[in-house]
Each structure stands twice: as structure tokens, then as C-alpha cells.
């Protein structure tokens, strides 16, 4: 029987270190997790509120909206409406994990297993994070961003910087590259390239050519428009990227501000696509590790009860008609699915063999889960791994709300006929391209009327919120400098 790692609710740095080492041992040797080095920081409640308001980042440029967030959370917290998160973890290398000083020792153990190993492993292994984010550079980049914006405020006045940031923030959600990560040349490199092109063009021009009467093609006008769009790289899904490169009115520093906001939007994009998986992975990891420690006798029964209490309250999934219902709890769904994958690998039912022939009974649930954590996102993970048992346990049902119909219609429930439809619907709900409006820049005639034309492709006839649309268009006009129009198109 090994010694207890800690006893009682109080923690000190010694017990923290000892516990973290024990957790790390299981994480590496049993689960085989691959994590960034951890940097665990103990912070006070006020600092936690600070971190909340700056989208969880340890440093951030200054903007009034963060002040608003802070006041909002502070008020909710001081009124007791809302508790504070036990931890915040940042996708950086080393992985920074904030733990609240008020946590008891069992809670610290839970939080460290959850964030410093669960989330950390997910950040390091998931393909979206590997491909799209730069955890080594993010803190330096934020530091640069804050200093840069500070200098802009000194030089151009806080008012102008604020207006630019306001407008950029409004476009943030429509400013990510969804399909490709383009090369990131600096503004100067781009300018140099443009200059070189002009030189080449001049060299290639020959006075003889200008004497020749060129053949006039009937569709010249259309060709010119197509050529113009091609030169501008249209259509473009990333609004800020387009403005940054082609807006006729922005000053260089404003373009740089846009670039900063765009890069941040891109940095957070993988997180938005992997909520269920990220939380599921972290919950699965903490649950496994802490149970292991309890089995080994290194965590006492009392502490384990406290841990399980927090665990189950975080994973509570209220029914749709419960007053506390606020959508499907990503923690609950992710954890349930991953536990079920473990069950299918170890003790499959005939149903599972039919649904998951490749993994049922294979026994290597660690390998299957790590594979899933590395290569899927919420939508594809649900599509691939949501089992009938989880649907039955959560008693899921699909509901259709069509404007044309007077009533809501239940389209599928957790039965043999409905499993597949249910799974498809749930997976679609986690597809970000479904959840956020599909808007792209389709045309801008810089030599003509300079109207910036956007296209919103309606999916299932769901319109944009009209007030929000107008306010956001005003922001776009501010950055574009000329008229901006948006067309709605049924897709």
C-alpha cells in the first residue's frame, strides 16, 4: 500500500508537486499521453476574473470590451450567480495552466489531471491545433500585439485605434481560413513582390505590341470583371484578410491591427471546432488517472468522494425541459462517448460489433482513443463514434423547427429507426460551417464604384439577424471606406 499523496483539503507546493508527479507517471506510462512541459500557475480569484475577461489569455492588448467582460463576470461572481472556473489552460508551449488558489487539494489534483494532462495532450496531438496554431509563438505574439497597439494609441490616438479594433472585432468570426492556411508573408514582403511584378511588366512591354490593333473579343467586359476578381483573389471567405490587403482607405498601421485580430481569430478557430472532444478528452483523462491513483491507495476515500462530486456536477446533463437546460453539455457528451469507446473495445455487445466492427472487442482502447483525439474534430468524431448506447443513455431526440410549419416535429429518437438520422443531425450541429453564417467577398471594383459586394449563402433559409447585420455592415464600411452591399443567396 503506497502512501497517500495528500491528506485533508489544504494544499502547499510540496503536495502539489508530489501529486503532479504521480499524475504524470500514470499519464505517461499508463495512458501514454504526449504533453508539452507544464507551467502551473496558482492565481487568486481576481486574477482569474482578469484572465476570464481577456479570453483566457495571460496577456492581451487593451480594449474596452475586455473591461466590459471583467465587470460583467465580476458582478455575476460577487452576486453569487456564477462561480469561477477552477482552471484555465492555454494552448502554448510550455502549456500554461492557471489553478485557483481557493481550490482544495483534491480539486487541485482533479484540475491538474484535467488541464495539465488532458487538455495539454489534446492540444499537442490534435491535427487541427498542430496545423493551425503556433503554441510556441503565441505568447510572444500577444506581447508584440499589445506593445504594437500601445504604440498605435500613442501615435494615432486611442479613439482611432479603438474604432479600428471595434470594427475588426465585429468581423472576427467571419475572418478565418476554413480550408487552407495560406503562407503568411509580411506586409513588406508583399509590397516588394508587387513592385517586382510591376518591374517585370514594364520590362515585358514592347512598344511594338502597343501599335498592334488587338483583337476585340465580344465578352471583353465580362473577361475584365473575371480578371479583376482573379487579381483580387476573389471570392474570399476571410473578410479581414481581404480588407487588410485591398481596402483603399486603411493606413499601414491599421492593416497591421487587422492582421493581429485575424491571427487571433485563427488561433481560436480549432478550439471552436473541438469543444466536445477537448473537454471529453480532459474529463476522460482526469477520471482515469484519479481512479487509478485511488486504486493504488494514493488518494484517500474522502478526497475521492469530493473529486467524484465535482466530476459529476461538471458532467451533469439536464434534460431539455429542465429549468437549467442550456444545450448539450460538451463535457457530458464527450466523456460519455469516450467511455463508451473504452467499453466497446473491452466488452462489446452484438450491437456494437455491428456498428463498430473495426474496434469492437479489440481491447486497445488507449490506441483507439488516441487516434481519435489526434485525427478528428467534433463533427467527424460524432459521425464516427457516437454509439446507439450513448444516444439511449442521454435519451437524445431530434427536433425540427421549420418556419413554414405550425408545429415542431420530432424527426428521430433513440430507437433502431432513428439512430443514424440522430447521429447525422447531431454531427451537423457541431459543424462550424453550419453554425456560423457563410459569408464571402465576391466583388470589388477598385477602379470603378468601389462597392464591396458580399454574398451570404443561406443554409436552410436561416437569415442573418437584421440588426446585427446592419451594425456589422457599418463596421465594414468603416474599414472599406466605401459602400458595402450584401446579397442573400439560397444555397
Amino acid at each position, binding site marked *: 500500500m503506497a502512501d497517500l499523496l495528500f491528506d485533508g483539503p489544504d494544499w502547499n*507546493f510540496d503536495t502539489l508537486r508530489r501529486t503532479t508527479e504521480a499524475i*504524470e507517471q500514470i499519464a505517461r506510462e499508463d495512458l501514454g499521453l504526449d504533453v508539452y*512541459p*507544464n507551467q*502551473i*500557475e*496558482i*492565481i*487568486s480569484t481576481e*486574477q482569474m*476574473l482578469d484572465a476570464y475577461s*481577456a479570453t483566457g489569455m495571460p496577456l492581451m492588448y*487593451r480594449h*474596452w*470590451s*475586455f*473591461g*466590459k467582460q*471583467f*465587470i460583467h463576470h465580476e*458582478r455575476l461572481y460577487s452576486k453569487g450567480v456564477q462561480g469561477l472556473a477552477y482552471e484555465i489552460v492555454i494552448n502554448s508551449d510550455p502549456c500554461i495552466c*492557471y489553478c485557483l488558489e481557493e481550490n482544495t487539494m483534491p480539486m487541485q489534483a482533479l484540475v491538474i489531471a484535467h488541464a495539465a494532462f488532458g487538455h495539454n495532450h489534446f492540444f499537442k496531438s490534435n491535427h487541427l491545433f498542430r496545423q493551425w496554431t503556433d503554441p510556441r509563438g503565441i505568447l510572444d505574439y500577444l506581447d508584440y500585439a499589445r506593445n504594437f497597439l500601445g504604440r498605435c494609441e500613442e501615435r494615432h490616438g*486611442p479613439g482611432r485605434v479603438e474604432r479600428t479594433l*471595434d470594427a475588426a472585432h*465585429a468581423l472576427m*468570426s*467571419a475572418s478565418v481560413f476554413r480550408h487552407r492556411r495560406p503562407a503568411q508573408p509580411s506586409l513588406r514582403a508583399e509590397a516588394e513582390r508587387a513592385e517586382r511584378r510591376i518591374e517585370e511588366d514594364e520590362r515585358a512591354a514592347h512598344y511594338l505590341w502597343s501599335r498592334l490593333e488587338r483583337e476585340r473579343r465580344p465578352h471583353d467586359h465580362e473577361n475584365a470583371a473575371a480578371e479583376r476578381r482573379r487579381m483580387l483573389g476573389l471570392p474570399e471567405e476571410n473578410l479581414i484578410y481581404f480588407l487588410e490587403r485591398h481596402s483603399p482607405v486603411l493606413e499601414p498601421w491599421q492593416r497591421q491591427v487587422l492582421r493581429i485580430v485575424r491571427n487571433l481569430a485563427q488561433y481560436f478557430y480549432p478550439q471552436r471546432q473541438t469543444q466536445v472532444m477537448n473537454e471529453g478528452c480532459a474529463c476522460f483523462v482526469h477520471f482515469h488517472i484519479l481512479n487509478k491513483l485511488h486504486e493504488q491507495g494514493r488518494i484517500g476515500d474522502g478526497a475521492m468522494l469530493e473529486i467524484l462530486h465535482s466530476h459529476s456536477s461538471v458532467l451533469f*446533463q*439536464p*434534460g*431539455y*425541459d*429542465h429549468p437549467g437546460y442550456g444545450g*448539450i453539455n460538451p463535457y457530458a457528451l464527450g466523456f460519455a462517448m469516450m467511455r463508451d469507446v473504452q467499453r466497446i473495445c473491452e466488452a462489446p455487445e452484438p450491437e456494437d460489433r455491428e456498428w463498430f466492427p473495426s474496434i469492437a472487442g479489440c481491447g486497445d482502447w488507449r490506441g483507439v482513443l488516441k487516434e481519435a483525439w489526434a485525427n478528428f474534430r467534433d463533427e467527424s468524431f460524432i459521425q464516427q463514434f457516437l454509439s446507439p448506447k450513448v444516444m439511449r443513455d442521454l*435519451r437524445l431526440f*431530434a*427536433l*425540427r*423547427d421549420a*418556419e413554414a410549419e*405550425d*408545429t415542431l*416535429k*420530432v424527426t428521430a*429518437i433513440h*430507437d433502431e429507426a432513428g439512430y443514424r438520422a440522430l447521429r447525422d*443531425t*447531431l454531427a*451537423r*450541429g457541431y459543424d462550424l460551417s453550419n*453554425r456560423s*453564417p457563410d459569408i464571402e467577398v465576391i466583388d470589388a471594383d477598385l477602379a470603378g464604384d468601389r462597392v464591396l459586394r458580399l454574398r451570404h449563402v443561406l443554409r*436552410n433559409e*436561416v*437569415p*442573418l*439577424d437584421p440588426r*446585427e*447585420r446592419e*451594425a456589422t455592415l457599418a463596421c465594414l464600411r468603416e474599414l472599406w471606406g466605401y459602400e458595402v452591399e450584401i446579397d442573400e443567396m439560397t444555397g
Partner: protein
Amino acid sequence: MTHFIDRRLNPKGRSTPNRRRFIGRIKAHVREAVDASVRKRGITDMEAGTDVAVPRDSLSEPSFRHASKGGTREGVLPGNREFQAGDEIPRPQQGGGGAGRKGAPDGEGEDDFVFALSRDEFLDIFFEDLELPDMIKRSLAGSSVARPRRAGLSVTGAPANLNVGRTMRRAMGRRIALRRPSDAKLEELRERLFALEAVFEPDAAQRAEIMRLQSEIEALTAHRKRVPYLDPLDLRYSHFEPQPEPRAQAVMFCLMDVSASMGAREKDLAKRFFVLLHLFLTRRYETVDLVFIRHTHLASEVDEQTFFYSRESGGTMVSTALAEMNRVQSERYPASEWNIYAAQASDGDNYQGDSRDCQIWLESELLKICQHFAYVEIIGEAEARILRDAARGTELWMAYREVAERWPNFAMRRVAGPADIYPVFRDLFARRTEAAHG
């Protein structure tokens, strides 16, 4: 692998700049809330902070997002009990059961964004754009304030004052002068030695080379030890010397008529004005003395309690108060050391003929030494409608008007209700940029 960092002692208030930006953005609303709360407030809690409710619209952060209605949407919900596929459910009422948003009766709508303004922020906005006539006399008398000021470098000091730049520069100079062998040099020798040592069965020349390298490395190491990277000699500290600071101090004379004609209402109004002035002065001066002088047909210096709450009966002679102020001032507050402010509140009644005396007192003595003298005449609501014209009024008012014309540091206003106090106050102390031109 894992590092622990205790951040709890890090400086607080990381979000203060963001908060300032936030308040700056909603300045108009905050100003409104401050004005309203000053009007409502009792005298004693004038200094507390206040809650500000801002309509959410003015704080919106728009983005392109889907409307909450329209189109076809399909979602998955948990917790099914009785539904079967194909069931039709009547559409729930607007907002999913919650009865639409309504403003709460206290004017704090659900749509409002509410936050608390701290006392300092409150007063900052409260006194924003207000200014004391800039005649602040600074005096060293009785000053005990000393501020540390940079005064070169010293060879001793507290670690916190270590001047890193200077220290490192000196260390570098010393290292160059004394030819301290560099890390790179030593490393290179070591590598060569290591390579040679790896040779199996070295010949004589190689062995000699090894010996030579070893002794050279030894010599270099000894040299490095003698010439350390950083020597106590190099240390330089920023030196600070305390320097006495001239201190600005002010005395504020509160003069009030307490004869029978001044009822509770008038006194309350007067007190509001005095409190505002006092708050304002305490934000500008380190020390503010208060002198309370009340008068009927006799004037006397009293404490604050007596000043506001005890009653006197008798006639009214305003000039006695002015004489008393002059006496107190010349005894205790020499004009060369003190900034002198006076505020007088009265209902305008005066003994016939005394107003002339008041004029003489003011012009020959008091206004010469006062930074500012404010006269507030408290009139009834009904009177306010009649006496809209500043050119008409009681004998005292007419006499003071003549004074005001000749002395820029004398100001007078009429006040009819609590709501007037703050505007009048702002009016009296508004930053006068245009005055400089005219």
C-alpha cells in the same frame, strides 16, 4: 517537467486600463447617472460610489450571426421521455417560456448593463471639467512632505535600486581591461582537449599537446576566477534624495445666515453647496481647513454641528460675518501661506443699510486675499419664477452685483432647489477657456 509559479502576489488591477477605456466609452451615460445620483443623494453619502445602468445597445459588439427565428433548423436535445418519431409539438411561446424582457420598476431594465462606479471614478466624473481659478499659492510652511528624487548613482543601496544597465556596463569594461578569457575560448580548448583525449593510444606529440592544453585551461580558469564576471566593485545603485515639496493648503470659510428666516430647507440647500465645495477643494489640496461662521445680527465661529443644526434667533446683519471672517483669517490664516476660499449662503435678507457695509468689507479687505468668494442666495421655488432676472433682487443682491462686476474672483448665483445646486456649482467652477480670450 512541470513548473509551479505562485502568481498570487503579482500586481493587481491588470484590467484597470480596460476598465478605464470602458468607462470612457460610456461617458455620456455615466455622466447622466452621476448627475442623477447627486441630485437624489443625502449630504452625508455624497462621497460614495454609484451604480450605473447603461443600455446594452450602446455596448453592443455586433457580428454576422444567424437570427433566432426563420428558416428550418434541426437540433438534437437530451432527456426524451415520451416523444416518438413523427410527433408534433406545438411551438412554445416566444422566448421559450420566459415572458419577454421588460424594464424593471426601478428603471434598471433587464437589458441594461449595470456596474458600480468606485468613489474615485465617481468624483473624477463629478468634478470633471471643473477647475479652481488658478491662483494656487504654494507654501513650504508646515510642510512635512518629502518626495524622493533621482540624484545620480551611488556605490551602496537597496537591491531594488540596483542600476542594472550601469552595473553591467562597468563589469564589461573591467572584464575587457583585465582580459578575462571568454567562454568561447575556454570551450574551444576544452573541445580540443576532449578530442585528443578520445584518441586511443596517443603518440608523444599528442600527449604533449594534451599536457599543454590542460595547463592552458587551468591557467585560463584561474584567470577567470581572479577576474569574475561580476564584481562587487561594479555595482551601482540609483540614488534618490528626499526633497521637500511645497505643499498647497487651503482654508475654506463657510458663512451662513442662521436667522429665523432660514428654515430647514434653506439650510439643507446651503449645506449641499458647502459639501460640494469642500469635496472639490479636498481633491485639489492636500490639506483643507474648514471654518464655520454663522451669523444673525451677531456673528461667531462655531463647529460643524452647531453650524448646521442649531437655531438662533435675532435680526440679520451680514457684515458681522464678514468682519468675523476677516478676524479669523488675520489671526490664523496668513494670506501668504494659505489659499483662501469663502462660500456664503443667505436668503438675501439683511438689515437695512448693512449691505453697503458688506460691500466695503468685501472690497477693502476680503476680496484682496481670497482666491475665490462664492455667494449663493437661496430663494423659494415661487420666488425663483419671479426673480428670473439677475438685475433685480434684494438690497444685498444688488450690492453684491456691483462687487461682482468689479472683482473677477467674486461669483454669485441663485438657488431654488436641490436640483439647482450641482448646475450652479458647475457653472461657478467651469473651466473658463473662453474667458482667456475675452
